[in-house]
């Protein structure tokens, strides 16, 4: 029986094809060859071949106390067979099986986005044995502490630490950032990333499903199964609906004594599109997100996010990159590179974030800073001072300049004010009592923040609130350049939670966007917590939606996608319910029979799947080009 079950499952498509051929033969025999006996025999054989797999499914479902659609179809087909309607029984089983086949094929499509993600998961690794030889093994056979070697162009098979070698890693599958990053001994590498060049040896820290990449896949797989409220309702409905149809069928037979009518009711009452309509939208929507670096934790998250009207953002690390960088340099000396080399050499002695930004900037320019410096003294809250026989150098803020009587010209004053107006921190350098450099340093705004937030507003978001621990002036300057409605500054992390609570009490549906490091309470409190750009376990656990890439494009896409997915679910439910209603009407009027009823049913299943498939093709780039046009006008 079980062997038969599996054999049938494997060959179900061939069986469906042979039924199709038999039906065709039968029709040819009937209408062209005028051989009614051959025609009937072909239909009988087709019915039997078709009924077996359906009946087997129905029986095994019954063993688990589930009244399935297959049971309705089996009873109907057997009934039709008994009353000699071989044509009807053959057509119904064929349509049912063929519908299953198409359903399977199209379902594969809606699942394809996640499949392509899991395909990126590493399967084999080059294990280094104790004697130094290597062998290829399955990643599942690796353990914590094993050493594996990865050659250029190879895929990192595990999460771990580099113990030998240096290489450039493409970590797009984890961080969304496709620019390769250089990693060497002691650095962490992630399974699923690719080495662009360099051979490295890694000590394994986690394998398979425990790696960050494994967790991302697990999350998406579970998300696709976790249902939206609409889907859950339909699911519950269907468990009562199917037995109800069976009972109605029996009642119809008992009351009217019309057996053909009763079995037709069974076929027409099949809840096909109803069962599949809502989940399939979610699968497609969540799959689209996963492909675009947006991980949504299930239908519930999608549904709630689509109703969000208030977006609360953290500034540092979310709206801004969280990294200090030089915004502008004004040079009042003779040779800019010489001046920069000097400044960089001074800053290199300190670990102040502003100084670090300047050193990086100078190095990126290709300027070397191996300048001989005098002994430097730190003046607290002002900067650094150095004096030798040849020159005196001052690096710091305006107070340092004043304290040392450095004159500031009108032109220099203008440069300083310009930086301050942009909300920059200003670093000044004076050489022998003359101001030479005015450097602005700022925590950089993400390049797509303005467009992304505007896109969110256009998509129907009512209010955007920025919360920050920064001072009011700096906060206001950032907010002015963005479509932000409210700014609250000088807050502690616990104050941020209070704001989220307050908005919720006012009746808003709140989404909080943060980096997940110190925002976890706010992420958890908001109706929807959105973790941005961090693959940290905490962010993955507390967020409802995770943006792999720190991008506002992705955020806007996620919002629109959630709205589209919810709308799509509704459309599918309407299609499904509408189909059943139309069929019943058709039955009453007398234009629908068993075969045509089954045909309409299978058609409606395909319609809802195709409708959901529209969500897969919904690309973010397309939305964004519209967006750019809109903001440009």
């Amino acid at each position, binding site marked *: 029986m*079980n062997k038969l*079950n599996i054999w049938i499952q494997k060959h179900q498509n061939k069986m469906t094809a042979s039924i199709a051929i038999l039906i065709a033969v039968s029709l040819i025999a009937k209408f062209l060859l005028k051989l009614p006996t051959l025609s009937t025999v072909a239909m009988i054989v087709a019915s039997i071949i078709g009924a077996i797999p359906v009946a087997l499914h129905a029986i*095994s479902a019954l063993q*688990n106390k589930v009244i399935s*659609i297959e049971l309705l179809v089996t009873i109907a087909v057997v009934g039709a067979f008994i009353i000699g309607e071989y044509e009807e029984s053959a057509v119904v089983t064929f349509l049912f099986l063929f519908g*299953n086949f198409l359903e399977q094929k199209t379902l594969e499509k809606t*699942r394809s986005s996640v499949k392509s993600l899991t395909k990126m998961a590493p399967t084999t690794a080059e294990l280094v044995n104790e004697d130094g030889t290597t062998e290829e093994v399955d990643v599942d056979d690796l353990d914590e502490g094993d050493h594996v070697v990865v050659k250029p162009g190879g895929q990192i098979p595990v999460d771990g630490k580099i113990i030998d070698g240096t290489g450039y890693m493409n970590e797009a599958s984890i961080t969304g950032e496709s620019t390769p990053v250089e990693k060497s001994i002691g650095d962490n590498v992630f399974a699923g990333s690719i080495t662009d060049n360099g051979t490295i040896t890694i000590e394994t820290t986690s394998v398979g499903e425990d790696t960050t990449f494994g967790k991302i896949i697990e999350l998406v*797989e579970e998300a*696709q199964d976790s249902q939206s409220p609409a889907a859950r309702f339909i699911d519950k409905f269907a468990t009562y609906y199917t037995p109800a149809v069976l009972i109605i069928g029996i009642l119809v037979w008992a009351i009217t004594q019309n057996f053909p009518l009763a079995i037709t009711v069974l076929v027409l009452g099949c809840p096909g599109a109803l069962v599949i309509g809502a*989940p399939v939208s979610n699968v497609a929507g969540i799959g689209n997100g996963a492909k675009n670096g947006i991980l949504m934790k299930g239908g519930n998250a999608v549904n709630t996010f689509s109703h969000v009207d208030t977006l609360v953002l953290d500034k540092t690390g979310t709206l801004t990159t969280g990294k200090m960088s030089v915004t502008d340099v004004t040079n009042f000396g003779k040779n800019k590179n010489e001046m920069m080399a000097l400044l960089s050499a001074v800053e290199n002695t300190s670990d102040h974030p502003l100084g670090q930004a300047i050193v990086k900037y100078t190095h990126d320019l290709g300027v070397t800073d191996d300048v001989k410096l005098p002994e430097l003294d730190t003046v607290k809250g002002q900067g650094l001072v150095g004096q030798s026989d040849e020159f005196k150098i001052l690096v710091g803020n305006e107070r340092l300049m004043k304290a040392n009587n450095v004159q500031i010209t009108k032109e220099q004053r203008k440069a300083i004010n310009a930086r301050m107006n942009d909300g920059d921190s200003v670093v000044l350098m004076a050489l022998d009592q003359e101001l030479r450099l005015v450097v602005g340093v700022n925590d950089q705004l993400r390049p797509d923040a303005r467009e992304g937030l505007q896109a969110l507003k256009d998509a129907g978001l009512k209010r955007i609130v920025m919360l920050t621990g920064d001072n009011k002036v700096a906060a206001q300057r950032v907010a002015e350049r963005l479509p932000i409605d409210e700014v609250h500054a000088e807050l502690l992390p616990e104050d941020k939670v209070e704001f989220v609570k307050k908005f919720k009490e006012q009746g808003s549906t709140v989404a909080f966007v943060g980096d997940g490091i110190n925002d976890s309470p706010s992420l958890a409190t908001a109706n929807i917590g959105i973790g941005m750009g961090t693959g940290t376990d905490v962010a993955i656990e507390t967020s409802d939606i995770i943006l792999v890439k720190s991008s506002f494009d992705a955020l806007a896409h996620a919002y629109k996608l959630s709205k589209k997915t919810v709308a799509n679910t509704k459309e599918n439910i309407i299609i499904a319910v509408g189909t059943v209603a139309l069929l019943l009407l058709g039955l009453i009027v007398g234009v629908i029979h068993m075969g045509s009823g089954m045909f309409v049913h299978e058609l409606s299943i395909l319609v809802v799947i195709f409708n959901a498939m529209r969500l897969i093709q919904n690309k973010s780039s397309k939305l964004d080009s519209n967006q750019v046009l809109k903001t440009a006008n």
Partner: protein
Amino acid sequence: MAKAILQLGELTCPSCLTKIQKGVENQDGVSNVKVLFNAGKVRADFDEDKTSADQISNVITDLGYEVKKVKVKESK
């Protein structure tokens, strides 16, 4: 306790899910059964003294579903 992860063939009917879920759950020593419909996977914790991953795999095969791959993770 160990964790078994079974990769099945493509699942198409939501009622298959219920069938597999109940079938595996009814095994002695098996707990925390999770059937992932769209991924076509089954995850379950089991007591190695009472049953094995192969036995779980057999249950699913007996229900009429193809098991493509079985993975076992020992929990520490």
